């Protein structure tokens, strides 16, 4: 109570009798979350405006004699003639470490019932992306914990890697796995006391998703102990389109704080297809001219200005972006997918067929690519997995031909067997990311032929056995792989000996 009184007294002390200038306007029409306003002659583009009843709006259309605003908040109390005031401020969200473990809406307000967020700093939602001079090329790895990705389509800190696929192909799962893996790495790194260790903080932006899905994601992160390193920005399907349009930019602002303050962050936009749809809705209501598929002309800029904010800054931190795009019937050549593919530094394409065949994560090796990530891959992974992508591509080609005839020469059959084994080896359950050292050990065993005697159907079981052998009995060796990050002769000999030991104890 006394603090409330103190606050009121402080505010009273600040009051002055000087006249305050306000620029005002009046609502002419209000419909579908958009208000057309007369007046507001001083309003700036993207400025916050104050509606009666506490709702705020953003001025998006500055026309000759009226202003078009999207309204964030309750529109039911607004009516024609209501007075609207400019605020002179751009929309900002609270940022900082205080947001970790919290779920906020597009305006940075907590929606998780855990009380107010005590953040001292705010960042503008819309910000110009870092320029050329301040950037640094991607050279540090960001491990997803997914073997197929870390070995063949590696991602680096500061990269933008698109995750694209039809509905129900495991796009969100890949990103959640990645967030969980960052939390696991953070815990190990922070416990080690290594001064050079750089934790990765995650931001998950849910756009236009069902509330139940958002809850499921939060539960999965909580169960894996990853929520304490994560900020969730939620603009679910029930939110108005303006909030869904703003949520990714708010998330980017939260991520930028980590980047600007010398830390590394990862941001997931789930998903940008729904974001484009929300923006299309706003644009159509604002009567902006529509183009292909009724999207407005600036739909490319909508995503390019967002994704350009992910960067690795010289002398500061980085922001890695994993945008998600949902395709229809695997069509990557649709409007929004091609836009986002061209903006990002590569894509991970997930296929429905693979998913239905039980190959999960359903990563299509042929269509997936990482343009800058290989520079960030650690040497150990390159040593054991450098040729995997080519081998798998060859396998797919051969497998397609092998369907037509059963008479295959021994060499082809061996190649097919090997490919089949790699595919099985890459199968991984959801929410169980693998540490990079364990990935190296499994791939090393595969390259040295330890899985050759195992039947293809039993590879998953054998791989699980090898993983548990290494984690329970060869912890020191794994730690050595992790710290050295490259396989020298000594380490190779140790790994070979460990694999032999596993082989002698393993019975299929």
């Amino acid at each position: 109570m006394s603090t409330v009184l103190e606050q009121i007294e402080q505010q009273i002390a600040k009051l002055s009798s000087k006249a305050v200038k306000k620029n005002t306007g009046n609502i002419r029409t209000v419909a579908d979350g958009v208000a057309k306003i007369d007046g507001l002659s001083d309003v700036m583009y993207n400025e916050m405006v104050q509606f009666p009843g506490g709702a705020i709006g953003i001025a998006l259309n500055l026309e000759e004699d009226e202003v078009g605003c999207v309204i964030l908040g309750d529109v039911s109390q607004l009516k024609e003639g209501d007075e609207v005031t400019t605020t002179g401020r751009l929309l900002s969200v609270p940022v900082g470490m205080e947001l970790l473990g919290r779920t906020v809406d597009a305006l940075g307000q907590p929606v998780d019932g855990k009380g107010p967020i005590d953040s001292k700093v705010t960042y503008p939602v819309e910000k110009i992306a870092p320029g050329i001079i301040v950037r640094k090329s991607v050279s540090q790895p960001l491990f997803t914990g997914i073997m197929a990705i870390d070995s063949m389509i590696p991602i680096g800190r500061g990269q933008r890697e698109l995750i694209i696929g039809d509905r129900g192909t495991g796009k969100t799962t890949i990103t959640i796995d990645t967030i969980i893996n960052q939390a696991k790495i953070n815990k190990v790194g922070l416990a080690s006391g290594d001064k050079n260790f750089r934790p990765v903080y995650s931001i998950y932006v849910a756009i236009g998703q069902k509330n139940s899905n958002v809850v499921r994601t939060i539960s999965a992160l909580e169960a894996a102990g990853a929520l304490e390193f994560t900020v969730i920005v939620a603009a679910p399907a029930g939110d108005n389109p303006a909030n869904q349009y703003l949520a990714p930019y708010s998330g980017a602002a939260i991520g930028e704080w980590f980047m600007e303050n010398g830390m590394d962050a990862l941001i997931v936009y789930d998903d940008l297809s729904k974001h484009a749809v929300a923006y299309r809705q706003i644009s159509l209501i604002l009567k902006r001219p529509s183009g292909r598929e009724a999207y407005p002309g600036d739909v490319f800029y909508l995503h390019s200005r967002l994704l350009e904010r992910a960067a690795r800054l010289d002398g500061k931190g980085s922001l890695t972006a994993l945008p998600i795009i949902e395709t229809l019937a695997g069509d990557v050549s649709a409007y929004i997918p091609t836009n986002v593919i061209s903006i990002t530094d590569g894509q991970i394409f997930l296929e429905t067929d693979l998913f239905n065949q039980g190959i999960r994560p359903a990563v299509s090796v042929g269509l997936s690519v990482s343009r800058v990530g290989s520079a960030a891959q650690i040497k150990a992974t390159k040593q054991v997995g450098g040729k995997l992508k080519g081998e798998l591509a060859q396998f797919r080609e051969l497998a397609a031909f092998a369907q037509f005839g059963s008479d295959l020469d021994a060499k082809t059959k061996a190649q097919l067997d090997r490919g089949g084994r790699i595919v099985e080896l890459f199968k991984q359950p959801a929410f169980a990311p693998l540490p990079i050292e364990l990935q190296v050990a499994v791939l090393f065993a595969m390259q040295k032929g330890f899985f050759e005697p195992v039947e293809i159907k039993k590879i998953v079981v054998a791989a699980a056995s090898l993983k548990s052998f290494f984690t329970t009995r060869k912890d020191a060796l794994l730690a050595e792989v992790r710290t050295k990050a490259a396989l020298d002769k000594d380490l190779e000999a140790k790994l070979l000996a460990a694999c032999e030991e596993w082989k002698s104890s393993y019975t299929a």
Partner: protein
Amino acid sequence: MVLKAYRRLIAIELAKGIALVDHAGAINSATLAAIEAAMTRKYGRTVKATARPNKELLAGVRVQVGDDIYESSVAGQLAALASSV
């Protein structure tokens, strides 16, 4: 339709030349003249002041010229206080 739009635009333009002075309590002609002079100087056009009693302000004045409002009333200060606490 066209005339309606034209009328609205004229009303907006005319409002820029009128200073609507809302006041709670008495206001003298000298104050009005001072407001007129100040606004004429500020906007670079002749601004005529019109007094309009408004008890809701509690005390003080509020001057409106076109879209701009100069708030110096107790009601305005209370509203600012309410929104900041």
